């Protein structure tokens, strides 16, 4: 296994050594795929997104100045592409929870009405995927990926306050949707 640091492999890849770039891919593919999967919510789209992340990185290698680590840079590309994906999906057919915090949602109205989301874990996954893109990306970066508000703000190009507000709103939407599943547990 190649143990050279990422930055050295980047220099090699810039000189045209594709094996160096392949090593970078092998090193980070799982984490990038994981983020893509959380954002996309299915394997096929996550696979496409992850491939696109590495292709974009390869095309932009000359633009990598080394001010941050290679993985941070790659992660930022992944977040940007995922956000574009979410916006596109949102435009296409997304049913959002925005503005429906107290309303009825067929998929989450009650445990009896949702066979797929019969358990809290599955229901949470579904509910998170149904969040509007801006809230979903903040929630996934902070709650699932474990980033701080400051890190998420940098990636999303907004202020920490905005991230804090989106987290609050996302949680409120999720709590309202998932109430039938957690009522007994929470009290």
């Amino acid at each position: 296994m190649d143990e050279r640091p990422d930055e050295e492999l980047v220099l090699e890849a810039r000189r045209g050594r594709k094996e160096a770039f392949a090593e970078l891919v092998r090193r980070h593919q799982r984490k990038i795929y994981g983020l893509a999967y959380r954002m996309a919510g299915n394997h096929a789209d996550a696979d496409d997104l992850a491939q696109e992340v590495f292709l974009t990185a390869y095309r932009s290698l000359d633009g990598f100045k080394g001010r941050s680590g290679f993985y941070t840079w790659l992660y930022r590309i992944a977040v940007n592409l995922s956000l574009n994906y979410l916006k596109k999906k949102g435009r296409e057919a997304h049913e959002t929870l925005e503005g429906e915090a107290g309303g009825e949602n067929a998929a989450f109205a009650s445990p009896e009405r949702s066979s797929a989301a019969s358990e809290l874990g599955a229901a949470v996954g579904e509910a998170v995927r149904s969040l509007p893109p801006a809230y979903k990306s903040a929630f996934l970066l902070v709650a699932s990926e474990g980033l701080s508000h400051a890190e998420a703000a940098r990636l999303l190009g907004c202020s920490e306050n905005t991230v804090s507000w989106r987290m609050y709103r996302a949680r409120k939407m999720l709590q309202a949707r998932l109430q039938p599943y957690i009522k007994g547990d929470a009290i």
Partner: protein
Amino acid sequence: MRCEKAKRLVSDALDDELSPKRLARLEAHLGKCTSCRAYRRSLELIHAEAAKEAPPAPDQEYWGDFVRGLSRKIDALDVRRRPRPKPAPLSPWLRPALAAGLVGLVVLAAFILLSRRSPLPEEFAYLHSEDSLSGVLEAAASDPELGNYLALEVSSSIADAAPIDAAGEPFLAVDEPFFWESLSEEELAAIAADLEKDNGQGEPQ
């Protein structure tokens, strides 16, 4: 503290983003608010479930295919981005030959066009030819070599086209009296101006 404010702080607290001072204020509120405590508990459950939800872990075969598929795309990308090889520079002796060939082609094309277009009676064909040559003459004005070559060709073509008189000399249309009568006032004025400029004779004889 109002409950709505407390709920906002609960969210920040779950992300470890709350200062100790604010956390203390929140805890004080939660200590006496059942509803906000229940809200925090429900968020903790959601948070824990969301953090637990791990993406699937594809097997080694998938990752092998992933890298191979990506490599194919990168190869295709490189083929598209590869700069096209520049044509080899022309050798010094080939350039004038190529230029001369191009000039020859232009002249040839001009004469082919001229030979095909002659709806006028044969005796007035030169008028049509003069008009048709205007484009070529303009090109020749900026290229001395082409100009010389064209002048030579035009002279010889006039000699070739002109009928031979009894003395064996080419019969030129300007010698024909009807030629002058066929010209308009403007054309006559232009010819007069040219003659005046060339030799001081203002009137055609």
